[in-house]
């Protein structure tokens, strides 16, 4: 692991079919930091996430995880996946499993824990996200926000080294969303978990981020990088400015 960089993206190009979404993107994530990815809707944040977690192979460029190219050979990706947890934007819980079974899924498949132990862990994780009472419910019969939280619990089930969250607080009420921010901060502090988080919520960005990377759909890549306060106060780029000061830019427009 060179100079504390856990993840390095080097000159990544990628997209869907013939549509180029990300062009020549480079960035890195340090061990133990919370990196937040922001950007307007449709600019390619979820797509970047797909490349970070090895769901799609870059057209060109590399994604390097703790010193190894994810696509160098299959075993790299297999090993890396055991070290991280992922929350999808849509939650992506298995519809035919109840919440508890969903949360214990990584445990069943990847550890040798006994049934009782797994249940303890799964219930604890559900309790952390405030879903202890709904452990036996099925994903499609709970609310969208509850699905999101259950998916969060599943991502954290194995206390992974790295957590990837795609819009963890979208669809949550302000109170839950705030307590989620606190939870994220606490996990990061206590377990030293590295986190890559996509979010739209400005308050969250300021509350949790160590560093912010902003993507832009036109530029098909990173247009700004720094701490949240730096981007808000020092950036001269109008796209960055308007994102971090939405009210002001609206006034200017009028």
């Amino acid at each position, binding site marked *: 692991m060179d100079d504390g960089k856990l993840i390095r993206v080097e000159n990544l190009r990628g997209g869907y079919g013939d549509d180029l979404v990300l062009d020549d993107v480079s960035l890195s994530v340090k061990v133990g930091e919370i990196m937040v990815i922001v950007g307007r809707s449709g600019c390619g944040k979820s797509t970047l996430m797909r490349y970070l977690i*090895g769901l799609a192979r870059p057209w060109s460029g590399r994604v390097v995880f703790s010193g190894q190219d994810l696509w160098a050979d299959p075993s790299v990706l297999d090993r890396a*996946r*055991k070290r991280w947890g*992922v929350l999808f934007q849509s939650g*992506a*819980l298995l*519809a035919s499993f109840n919440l508890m079974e969903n949360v214990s*899924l*990584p445990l069943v*498949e990847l550890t040798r824990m006994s049934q009782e132990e797994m249940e303890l862990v799964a219930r604890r994780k559900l309790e952390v996200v405030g879903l202890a009472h709904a452990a036996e419910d099925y994903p499609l019969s709970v609310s969208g926000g509850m699905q999101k939280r259950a998916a969060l619990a599943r991502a954290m089930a194995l206390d992974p080294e790295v957590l990837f969250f795609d819009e963890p607080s979208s669809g949550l009420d302000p109170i839950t969303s705030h307590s989620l921010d606190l939870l994220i901060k606490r996990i990061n502090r206590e377990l030293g978990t590295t986190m890559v988080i996509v979010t739209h919520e400005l308050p969250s960005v300021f509350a949790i981020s160590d560093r912010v990377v902003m993507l832009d759909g036109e530029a098909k890549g990173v247009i700004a990088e720094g701490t949240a306060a730096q981007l808000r106060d020092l950036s001269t780029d109008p796209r960055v400015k308007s994102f971090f000061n939405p009210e002001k830019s609206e006034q200017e427009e009028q």
Partner: protein
Amino acid sequence: MERGGVPVRLESQGSKVVFGKSLSSDNEKRLRAFFDSAFEVLSKRREVVFDFSSCRSMETAPTAMVYNVSRRLENIGVDVEWRNLPEEGRALLASFERQTAVPKRISRAWSVRGIVEDIGESGRTALEVAKGLWKFSGRTTLATLSALLRPATVRWKMVRFYMEQGGVGAVPIIAVLCWLLGTVLGYMIGYQLKSFAAEAFMPDLISYAMVWEISPLIAAVLVAGRSGSAFAAEIGTMKVRQEVDALEVMGINVFGFLVTPKMLALMCVMPFLTLLADMAGLLGGLLIGGWYLDMPASIFIRRVNFVLLPIDFWWGMLKSIVYAVIIANVGCYMGMKVRGGAMEVGRATTSAVVTGIFMVILADALIAIAFMHVRPPLTI
């Protein structure tokens, strides 16, 4: 009377269309009727004015209709001028003009060449499917074998579930269908044999037809229709909901998790379904023999006993295991291929059944050739 009075009228001998107070969905029907009848007149003019001076509100849908009329007029060489548009109308018109300025994807006209191209295209698709299926089967076989070497990793609960769903659920329909087929075949065979007084051989033909060919095939076709399609729909839906992606990033072997239980379940139930189909078919023959050919049941059974060897049953059950592998593979493969939305899931379900049955019959042909070499000669 509607709001705003007459929604539209013609003036200046048909060179001016004057719109009423509002273009709303309430009077859309009347607007449409008006243009249907006035189009003829308008199209004879060189210039037409659409006058909106008394128009206060314009909704999107009726305005789109008017816009469409004006485009049709312009296409046949009539100049249309939209005059005195209110604010919201101007915004709508500008937007419609922006939309139509974008060149549309031209859909290919129907032509012989197009059809030939389509056929060529579908041939290529078939080839691609065959290639993909081949690779997919390799991976599922590997996953299944390694799962069998470590039985603790198999999700037996799911295996049981699919056995119940695909096996037990299919029992009544397979039994009834094969019984019916046995009856019909027995009747037709008896009818022909009777004409040269050889009806005593009816049991021979029924036995060979049912046990060698029809029972395994009918069982496979029904299982493809019931389970193959269900597998494709299940996996396809999971794919659409990103559940498969989620499994993958959790480091779970998607093949072992999703495909292996289905495959094992079908491999377990298919031989028994085939045996059941054999019995039902023979029973049909027995009954029709008694009813139509006056053949006592004991004679029928003795004859069947004499001509059929144990290998006939074993072979049918063996080949049904091959069919099970094919059906499970095709169903899961079609599900995994789903990209996009619900429509794709529907398509995957259809191709799971069609391709599944096609492959089963293809395999059947190959196996039949092998069988003729393996089986001891017929006994008369």
